[in-house]
């Protein structure tokens, strides 16, 4: 995949020095190999119990005839809940039991262990997916864009670029007030297709995983079961235990510093001091454009 190619009308040049000559097998060392596999036939509620029991970031979904695994993340669950909540919130609980994971998960990209990291990131950008599956013998492993960054940070790859935070950070940080409800938060994240939202008064970031962690807490699950509308009307201060403080850096911070700070802890987010720009793992794909 060397040379010039187009993604959504934009011309990209390959050969970014950050990605070096690394391959997917190098990144696999940073992937979580303990993530359990779940069947596509499982109801969504059962998958939620998997998230709850093991405090996972995602689940690998298997069982398709074509043998391409899927991935179930907090964002999938959130999107599912939002769709049902928008039309028939009273049916939320039953929907969790009657909808299979097959109807909710994303298919992953497929990658070979010998594929270059640059090609992997390019493929992720082209398909708009932050996960790729790698098959080694009979077992699937998932590599996420965050795993790629962890690897690049540890290998010192970001030292090879002179780019600054502002060069690839996304302008326009979406935020919601603490008086907003859970449903309004879901609406913002699903409609804008984002996984991170700043909670204004708290100066913290809630992610799709944070929302999921809140929903699978004992109390929220009981409320979801007994009174779904009440749960959807929950003010966002209930979610603050599941939100995290972003790293705040100056606009001119070197990318090597920005990504090093980003991978340290959840919510894996860097904000500029003026709070106008946000750096997330997905912004790594912009390194291709910058090239």
């Amino acid at each position, binding site marked *: 995949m060397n040379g010039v190619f187009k993604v959504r009308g934009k011309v990209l040049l390959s050969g970014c020095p950050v990605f070096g000559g690394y391959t997917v097998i190098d990144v696999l060392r940073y992937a979580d190999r303990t993530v*359990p596999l*779940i069947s596509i036939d*499982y*109801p969504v*509620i*059962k*998958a939620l*119990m*998997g998230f*709850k*029991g*093991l405090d996972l970031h995602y689940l690998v979904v298997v069982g398709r005839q074509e043998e391409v695994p899927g991935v179930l993340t907090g964002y999938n669950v959130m999107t599912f809940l939002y769709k049902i909540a928008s039309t028939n919130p009273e049916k939320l*609980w*039953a929907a*969790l*039991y*009657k909808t299979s994971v097959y109807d909710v998960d994303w298919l992953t990209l497929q990658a070979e262990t010998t594929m270059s990291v640059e090609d992997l990131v390019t493929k992720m950008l082209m398909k708009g997916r932050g996960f790729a599956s790698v098959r080694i013998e009979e077992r699937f492993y998932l590599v996420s864009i965050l795993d790629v960054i962890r690897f690049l940070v540890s290998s010192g790859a970001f030292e090879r670029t002179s780019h600054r935070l502002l060069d690839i950070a996304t302008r326009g940080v979406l935020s919601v007030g603490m008086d907003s409800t859970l449903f309004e938060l879901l609406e913002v994240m699903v409609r804008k297709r984002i996984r991170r939202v700043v909670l204004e008064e708290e100066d913290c970031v809630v992610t799709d995983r944070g929302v999921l962690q809140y929903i699978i807490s*004992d109390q929220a*699950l009981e409320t979801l*079961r007994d009174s779904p509308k009440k749960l959807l009307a929950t003010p966002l201060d209930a979610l603050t235990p599941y939100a995290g403080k972003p790293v705040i850096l100056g606009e001119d911070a070197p990318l090597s510093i920005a990504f090093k700070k980003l991978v340290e802890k959840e919510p894996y987010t860097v904000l500029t001091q003026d709070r106008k720009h946000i750096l997330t793992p997905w912004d790594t794909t912009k390194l291709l454009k910058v090239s």
Partner: protein
Amino acid sequence: MMQWGLMKLCSLNLTAEELALLNKIRNAAGENGLVKVFDVNAEGAIVALIEVGEDSSAEELMEKLDMLVDKRLLRSEFDAKILTCRGCGGRKLMPKTACPLCGSEDIVKSAVYVHRCGALIPEVGVGRLVSCPKCGGDLGSAEGPEHGFVCNACGATSKWLRVLVECLSCGWSDVVENAGQIVLRRYGLTEESLSILVSADPVKKLVRRLVSKGYTVLCGVRIRGISGAEYTLDLIAVNTTDLVSKIYIVFEKVGLAELMDIAVKKLDIDKNSINGVVGNIRWVAAAPAIEPGAEKVAKTFSVDVELI
């Protein structure tokens, strides 16, 4: 009331006492698998031939065994019928026979011939009579001889006797139909109860363990969840003394998938909708094998893990 609530839940519930009874039947069974459990003594009292607790009577034991028959944990077959006195209940009854027409006991056996009109003619009369005393027809067509009886008091001829019994203890006397009767049955295990007692099946093993610990156990309880999904709960064990109820889901092994499964059920089932459970209600994932780390995960679901 408690027992009624439990009975409604499923086809099988079992107490420690019932399990002990099943074991006794199993140990005493002969080649055909049946045990003669009862007899009647000279006073007409039912006596148990297997050991019964001091606080229990043979009649109570019979009730319990018949209840196990109703639950299909025992099968029973006819063993004997004992006639008893309506006056004193004793079993020392002397049989008597009497004429069905006049009631006189002066009735003797006699060969009889049956005329085509239905008339019974005693053997002694065949030589004397020239025609049927009832229809006047020719006696040549009379068939016989057959067994019959002739009353010396009224002269009636009959095929049957009136049978009376007289109690040697109190003197009560009546026709045999009016005597009391006790039917004794022999008992044996059914396939289901045999499997509960000896099976290596994890559910059956668990039943044995729980029942011996004083729990009343219900098997295969079907219930509908709040979502509308239907579930079968493998076992519900209730201890009314300690006010503890345990809801068991039994697996081949307990790992993440199994814990996810039980957590899903636990969330969806309103415990107040389960008849018969009392006190502190715990959900238990039980299996002959438990994967490493399962107990830690189980804690996040507030589920107990138990090795069978």
